[in-house]
């Protein structure tokens, strides 16, 4: 990470720490990483809501492949923290059934790449439940798990497949980039009452650079409110997940060249906070959207489309998407970095846009 970046949360009840912590001393009391924040959210919601159940592959005895649920089964028992068979469709389907009968369910995907094995139960069973029952039945199920590239995970441990779910009406889609948001958004999702797909960035799980102090008191980050990570006047960089950090770094590079970039972290894709994006464009008139999913029919395209249809008059240059190439995510580092967005790609695009 480059220079400390200004954090400014937008929305009722959302208060982010003032600055990103660049290099916290390891083990400093009070600083919590992204994974710890998620774990705290689960423990606190399990405590708060006796009708909450968690299930997933290896989440009980093992505590999850990454340890997000460590200690949860020991505290809340095997009936509320279920070690499920390797059966994503059954995990989602039974979660829907539990929700139909009054439970709130966290269903972990060991990797979000595996969510495709439960796809029908998500898009046809879970996402449509409220609609086809005319609101009689809501399904408070949060499907969460690790996602994203840059870690050498290769084709099946690196995906960001959020666009599939944004294209399935009835689902909340969330992707936090900080520990504060990870905890606050997960708690908000578990209380929201709608089915949610919650993308965690596994490269951020234990990243010490973003560890931060979290409030002692209960808090949520409301869905549908973007955060401005850095203020600027010349160009707007919109992103989510780990590409937010790339945008912040790019903004620091651009500042050296006299270009003031604003960085917006949308945090929730569905619902999307369009107003914060439009307000920024009213200042900057230039837009770059960055995400690590493939370009075609990806969420970056959705943001560009909304801007061009609803706020065309605010633009002085064509919007640019910086995304993964339309390829799978390859394994070895040079290949992986070639296809994924980078700070350099963002800087180059920003220079081009500003000079348009």
């Amino acid at each position, binding site marked *: 990470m480059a220079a400390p970046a200004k954090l400014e949360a937008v929305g009722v009840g959302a208060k982010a720490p003032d600055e990103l912590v660049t290099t916290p001393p390891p083990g400093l009391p009070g600083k919590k990483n992204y994974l710890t924040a998620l774990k705290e959210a689960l423990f606190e919601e399990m405590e708060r809501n006796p009708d909450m159940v968690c299930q997933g592959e290896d989440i009980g005895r093992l505590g999850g492949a990454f340890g997000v649920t460590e200690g949860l089964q020991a505290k809340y028992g095997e009936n509320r923290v279920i070690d499920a068979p390797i059966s994503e*469709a059954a995990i989602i389907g039974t979660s829907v059934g539990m929700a139909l*009968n009054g439970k709130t369910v966290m269903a972990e995907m060991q990797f979000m790449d595996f969510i495709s094995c439960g796809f029908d139960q998500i898009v046809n069973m879970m996402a449509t439940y409220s609609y086809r029952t005319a609101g009689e039945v809501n399904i408070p199920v949060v499907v969460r798990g690790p996602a994203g590239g840059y870690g050498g995970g290769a084709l099946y441990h690196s995906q960001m497949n959020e666009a599939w779910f944004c294209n399935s009406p009835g689902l*909340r889609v969330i992707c936090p980039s900080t520990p504060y948001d990870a905890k606050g958004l997960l708690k908000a999702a578990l209380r929201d009452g709608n089915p949610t797909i919650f993308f965690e960035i596994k490269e951020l799980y234990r990243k010490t650079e973003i560890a931060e102090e979290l409030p002692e008191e209960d808090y949520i980050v409301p869905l549908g409110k973007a955060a401005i990570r850095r203020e600027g006047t010349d160009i707007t960089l919109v992103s989510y997940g780990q590409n937010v950090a790339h945008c912040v770094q790019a903004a620091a590079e651009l500042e050296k060249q006299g270009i003031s970039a604003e960085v917006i972290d949308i945090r929730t894709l569905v619902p999307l906070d369009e107003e914060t994006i439009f307000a920024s464009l009213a200042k900057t008139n230039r837009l770059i959207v960055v995400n690590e999913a493939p370009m075609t029919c990806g969420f970056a395209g959705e943001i560009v489309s909304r801007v061009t249809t609803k706020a065309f008059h605010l633009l002085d240059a064509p919007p640019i998407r910086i995304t993964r190439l339309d390829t799978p995510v390859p394994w070895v580092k040079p290949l992986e970095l070639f296809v994924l967005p980078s700070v350099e790609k963002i800087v180059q695009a920003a220079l081009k846009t500003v000079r348009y």
Partner: protein
Amino acid sequence: MPASPPAGAATAEASAANPIPQTPSRPRDLLTKDDCLEIFRQIYLARYFDVRLIKEKKRGRLRGTLYSSHNQEAILVGSLFGLRPTDWISPIHRDMPAFFLKDIGAGWHNADRVGMSIEEVCAQVWGKVDSPGRARDNWSHIGSRAKRIIHSTSMLAGTIPVAAGVVYADRLNGGDAVAVTYNGEGSTAQGVFHEAINYAAVHKLPVVTIIENNQWAYGTPTRLSYSQEDFARRADGYGIPGLVADGQDVFDVYDKVMEAVEWARSGKGPSIVECKTFRAYGHGDHDDDRANKYRTPDEVEAGRQRDPIAVCRRTLIDLGYLSGPDAEQYLAEGKNAADATNDDFPPDVVSYLNEGIDFALKSPLPSPEEGGMWVFKEGN
């Protein structure tokens, strides 16, 4: 492997892949004469519902596809009759009568029973706003949390995991509800069928999976869906009971399902009950003509020779519950919808459905804006 009966010629002695130890008395032995006559009346009701809807469709009064339950009514009546109001069911497309047959023992006109009224079901068939789902999805894709009926989708076997989750939650709450899921034999080839039953077996969940083996999965015969004769043998791989029932005999279905239900309710876990039957018509009414090409007339005649109305009538006569002129009236058995008339059914069955249809015809269509509502909990 036990000997298996030929397809379409199921008998009460059909092999059980993995039987539940028999008790000295059969569940049916506890049924009273009134119970048995009520069961007979419910089979008529299910048949009349089917016959009447086919007639209404031919008159151009219905939109959408009809998935006839003709010749398969004994499975629905026999499996639902012994359930408690607190039990859950998940019917599929060919099980439309299940929606009003659930808990109908509490009174056909009892608005508080834990099943749908005939008015609600007819409003759904006619696509009216008084449908339990406000006519947002078609045909059998309705349900009700309050009535403990799981809402199906077109993705067959997809409700089995939902049923498993429902009873998992019920057990957490200290309940003893059982979930009965309905499936065609074709859907047992779905991956989710395996995942869900495996999950239920691991957690010993009270889920009874009924396989309505009507010999045809749309245009695919059973031998191309499964490599063994009895679909109940699917149970072997999960270490759970797999029973075979004669799907034409309502009392055999009742026996086998009640055994499975009590097994489940006593905490022993899930089971599979295969009910052997035969699909009378095409997959849906759109398929009736083509079904006559992929199935031979001889096969259809053989598959339909044991009409569940006739089989039930025979049993009641043998028991002495029907005799004289009473045994000879309302001869609906063997008649296609085109040949059957109201005189072939008990008058109270006809009037009951008429009330539902009258209600549906008067119910309005939903307002167009509802098409944009309830995507999320908040309403839009």
